[in-house]
């Protein structure tokens, strides 16, 4: 899957908002406000996505095939009027690759003694 790898690599590094949105969707289908709340909770309020940024990113992610809109009937919804988004396989691969990239960079920083709790 050389080409698949290339496609994944071409999208890295992810902008922070994109990364957080993909992480939020990795936990399950969410609608827009759900994503905002999830990101806010995970980052303990440090990142609060605006509606504009969120949907601009969503539009791009939809275009690039990293997320999709599941058919309405596919799963039970707490609010059936809202639009839900689901991460695709490609999306999962991309966010995982970015997380690995970040982890590598963190361990590099630790090795250089830049971070507390160096192993």
């Amino acid at each position, binding site marked *: 899957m050389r080409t698949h790898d290339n496609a994944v690599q071409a999208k890295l590094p992810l902008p922070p908002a994109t990364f957080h949105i993909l992480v939020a969707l990795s936990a399950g289908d969410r609608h*827009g*406000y759900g994503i905002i709340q999830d990101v806010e909770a995970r980052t303990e309020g440090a990142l609060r996505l605006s509606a504009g940024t969120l*949907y601009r990113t969503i539009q791009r992610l939809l275009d690039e095939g990293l997320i999709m809109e599941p058919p309405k009937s596919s799963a039970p919804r707490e609010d059936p009027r809202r639009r839900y988004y689901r991460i695709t396989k490609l999306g999962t691969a991309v966010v995982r690759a970015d997380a690995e990239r970040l982890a590598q960079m963190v361990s590099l920083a630790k090795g250089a003694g830049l971070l507390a709790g160096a192993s």
Partner: protein
Amino acid sequence: MIRIYRALLRLYPSSFRQEFADEMTAIFTQRGAGSGMLRRLGLLLAAVPEVLANAAPLHWELLRQDLAYTVRSLRRAPLFAATVVIVTALGVGANTAAFSVADFVLVQPLPFRDPESVVRLCAGPREGGGWGCNNLLAPAAYRDYKEQTSSFEVLGAFARGAVNLVGGSEPLRLAATQLTPEVFPALGVPPLLGSFVGGGAGAAPDARTAVLSYGLWQTRFGGDPGVLGRTVSLDGEPHVVVGVMPQTFYFPTRDVQLWTPLVVAEEAFGDPFNNYLEAVGRLREAVTFEEAATDLSGVLERLRRDRPDVYEQLAARDQGGVSFFRIGDEYSPRFRLMLQALVGASLCILVLACANLANLMLARAGARERELAVRAALGAGKERLIRQMITENAALVLVGGAAGVLVGVVGVPLLALLVPPTLPIASRPGIDLRVLAVAAFFTALTGLGFGLAPALRAGGRAALGALRTGVRSSGGPQRGYRAALVSVQVAASVVLLVSCGLLVRAVLRVQAVDPGFRSEGVLTLQTVLPKPEYLSLASREPFYREVLTRVRALPGVEAAAYTSGLPMVMTGGITQVVLPGQEVRPGGENNVSRRYVTPQLFAAFGVPLLAGRDLEDSDAQDSANVAVVSESFARRYWPANQAVGQSFLFQNRLHTVVGVVGDMKVRGLERVSEPQMYLPASGVPEGFISAYDLKDLVIRASVPPTSLLPAVRGVIRDVDPEQPISDVRTLSELLASQTAPRRAQVRVLAALAVVALLLAGVGIHGLLAFTVAQRQREIGVRLALGAEPAGIARRVAWDGVRLVLIGAVPGLLVAYWAAHSIRSMLFGVPRADPATIGVAVGLCVFTALIGASVPALRAVRVSPLTVIQAE
């Protein structure tokens, strides 16, 4: 609150909005739920920068996509793109140039302080054709007006002239003006360096000072600020440079380079008919122009009552007194008209360009209907398509507009050639940005307006029809619009062609006027002898005699003579003569044009001697006063063929007619000239004022006249090495300069008319090609049923001609009206000149036939088989 938020969301591109606006509104509602008014307001305020920050990149992304698409689609239609760009460029460029020049000359205030208060005063009427002042003021009259009027803050006098500047390489002859100390303050422009001539109003002027123009300072003195205090030699007299005027200062005309003080000798006030002054003044604050005019005419009336001996005569000579006008009205009304005609013509081009653009856009809309229908069917929203169309047209119009600016930049200097040098303004107007904006706005509006049509249709049902049948379904109404637009173009072309044609006829008519002299083979040049070196007649006489003797001896010279003024150059010099025992009659009936000449002048000019003899050298020595008069002079005073030997009174002295010669158009080809009187050089009045001094050398040669120039220069240098030579030209050039402004104007109009005709031709061709393509099936069926191909071609051609005839009717009406407004420039050519109208309409029909030829051929070549198979 929600409503405001929704309104805010409209900043996003519509495709994005349609997709996500509901969700975003829901989020906004949820966030604000349960909180107070203040917090919700805070949320809304925070949303403003957020929306702006996110909407901008989204729009940019779409613009990028659309531009890429535009480039692709225009690459497929290069002819269309090029035509749109060219049409836009012409429309924008021609208008920008024409309006910039017109605005610069007609609207912009002159570069004087408060120019509305600066007024001019001279003698005689300003003729209907607008030729400026007829006559000059005598010092005595100037002083009377100055003393008795109360409307002027200052009133000064000036005398135009020229001086010989000696020093440096070549002696130089410069246009210079002598002025009284009031003139500069009246104009209200401070000097760039130093001070005014004479040091301001009131102070006694020092005659030995000079003020330089910026141009002279730069060219002759290298822009050296140390020039103040330097001494220059003017006409052999040392003058101290006391000032330099700023670059934008011109007075009274653009060519004047030097100002010296005007000192009126006390004895000059003694002769009320010795007129050589013009006056310029500044109105007192709170005095209107009309009040000043009333004041002035009151003074005139009183003067005529109190001193009828002088002022009745003056009124008779000057046909009713003085001309009084704002300095802004100095240029001739003719010239204003010329510029207005130009502006009108460029408006025609704008109308034409807009009609053409509309037509092009509609044509392209027809061609793209299918493409747009496909895109709409594939899910492109109507708004998205409109956006795409706007981008495409805006890009085209922008490129066209940029090209238009170039056309304007190139066009302004060309049109500026129409600005006569007799105006006190710079010769080079700049591009007027406001005008540019207006022209760009109109073309953009047209381009965008009509460019949107296809996108608007794309969403409609017709488009679906187009998709289904695969046939261009746009039908009747669109053809109707397009035919109307083509007719508008034809109308605009007809207006331009007819106006241009009438002006061409006028030029031909002016050129056909017999000037009275034979212009071929004649060289003229000027040697103005400086005073006081050559103050007395006796001191000048040897110079003329020597020069003439040696020039006449040059090989190829047939005749040579000196005169005090060339016809059409020196148009003044008007004097009154009466028969013994008669009174001067009012209305200029005794006015004649007065020239002092040497023998051989008539031979040099090629003016026929009708009776009697030429002046002879002995006339100058004789104490008897003799004169040669022109035919009209003889006819005015005496029965036919009896003039020779008769006498008349001039300056209270009896003069005897010794010869009668043909009339010359001394005032110019287009004006009525006074009868002419030629006196021997011995009669030239003595004094510093040199209007009647012999100065123009006229040489008739059997060789090309300019080839004589080096030899003539040599002769003059030998006689007086310090004597400059100026105004070298052939008589043919002088004659041609009479029609130069007209020819320049006609050239500009003709260029515009050709452009108009071309555009109209393109329009006709486009429409017919479209019609033929649309009727292909019908034509095929007709051909299959046995119709004559020639008949079908004729029908297509007739369609084109019909468009012309429909457009020509309103065109001719507008042209008739336009001709009415330029009638004073038509020189008697009738407004409804049938030949001009015939040629104009003929040219349009011819263009239509050419435009129709390709579509007609295509129609004939329609293969019935192919068409029917396609069914």
